[in-house]
């Protein structure tokens, strides 16, 4: 089965969903992402859905799950590029995806992730977070 590719950009992971996913593919993405976050020590995940023309409750729940799980793994998730028709439909469906951070596009999403990272570093004080997570740039 084809899997949705996950790109690593520095300490962030980037996923671009461009196909109409069947359930198994979506679940595989969820698994792949969580395992990759753990393996790479990534601190941020950007999910680009600007090509998705439909998001139903299954995919919506999946995205909320990914967001929740990455938070537990100490990574921030941001969902970018939701199309207006999709947003309107999700609202009507009753899904508000609370807890999922969103941004208008990849640029804003990355900006947000970097800023969040910078905040983290400031909080961590003198401790090098890279070293703490065994992460190599």
């Amino acid at each position, binding site marked *: 089965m084809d899997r949705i590719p996950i790109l690593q950009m520095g300490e962030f992971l980037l996923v671009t969903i461009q196909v109409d996913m069947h359930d198994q593919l979506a679940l595989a993405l969820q698994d792949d992402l969580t395992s990759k976050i753990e393996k790479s020590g990534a601190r941020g995940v950007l999910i680009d859905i600007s090509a998705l023309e439909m998001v139903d409750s299954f995919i919506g729940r999946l995205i909320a799950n990914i967001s929740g799980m990455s938070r537990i793994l100490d990574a921030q998730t941001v969902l970018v590029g939701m199309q207006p028709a999709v947003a309107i439909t*999700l609202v009507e469906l009753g899904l*508000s995806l609370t807890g999922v951070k969103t941004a*208008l596009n990849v640029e804003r999403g990355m900006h947000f992730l970097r800023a969040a990272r910078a905040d983290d570093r400031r909080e961590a004080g003198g401790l090098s977070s890279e070293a703490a997570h065994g992460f190599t740039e």
Partner: protein
Amino acid sequence: MAQQSRTAAILTKHRDDLNAEWMKSLQAAVGGKDSRISESQLKEQTAQFTALLLAALQAGEAFNAKSSEWKAITHFLEEVSKSRVAQGFSSDETAMFIFSFKKPLFARLRQELGKDAEALAEETWAATDLLDRMGMLTVRAFQKTREDVINRQQMEMLELSTPVVKLWDGVLALPMIGTLDSARTQIVMESLLQRIVDTGSELAIIDITGVPTVDTLVAQHLLKTVTAIRLMGADCIISGVRPQIAQTIVHLGVDLQGVTTKATLADALSLALKRSGYVVSRPKV
């Protein structure tokens, strides 16, 4: 089928005369020249009609607006109706375009078939039936065009009455005026969301100064709009919230879910600029 070909025969033989007589009766109906349509255009339409009618009759099939033999003339009549709408004619005036062809045609039929009473009766009936159906077709096409115009105008009015304006880089404003109903809010919501995407604006100010009342339905619509905006990655400020509206919202128990509200558009703009990282300063003179 033999009957149709008699009218076809007459058309072939006397087409130019028929066209001329038809023009005369059309002009007589309006008492001379009609300022709404040029004489040359009218002449062209009469000529085209008789040409297409002849072609269709010669194909030999009974009149059926959907069949390929009659398609050309049906299409022609629809186009004529459309242009009549634009020229300001009424539906019956448009139908009269067809019906006034009867007089010259029947005169010719009488001339050619006068000796055979039965043939004349059959042919006259066939011709009148055919022309009546075409007349009905033009009326239907006229009405459809009128409806399309009205629909389009309604859409334009809706769009005009709620323009989305760019207040600053990254800040859009949507001044809502008048009563908010379901249909209107939908269209407005969609255009605002699209503008947010198109301009990459992260803040939208929805100003409801011009909205007289806010009931549960309106509040729900506003909330849906705000939720959609947030899902897309932007945020929203609602301005123009008068004390009465604030009261209504509280009484209705509507949860604005942390949406910032401001009394005036000015306050909202000030906040939007601040949030976007701008500082407005006035240098000392």
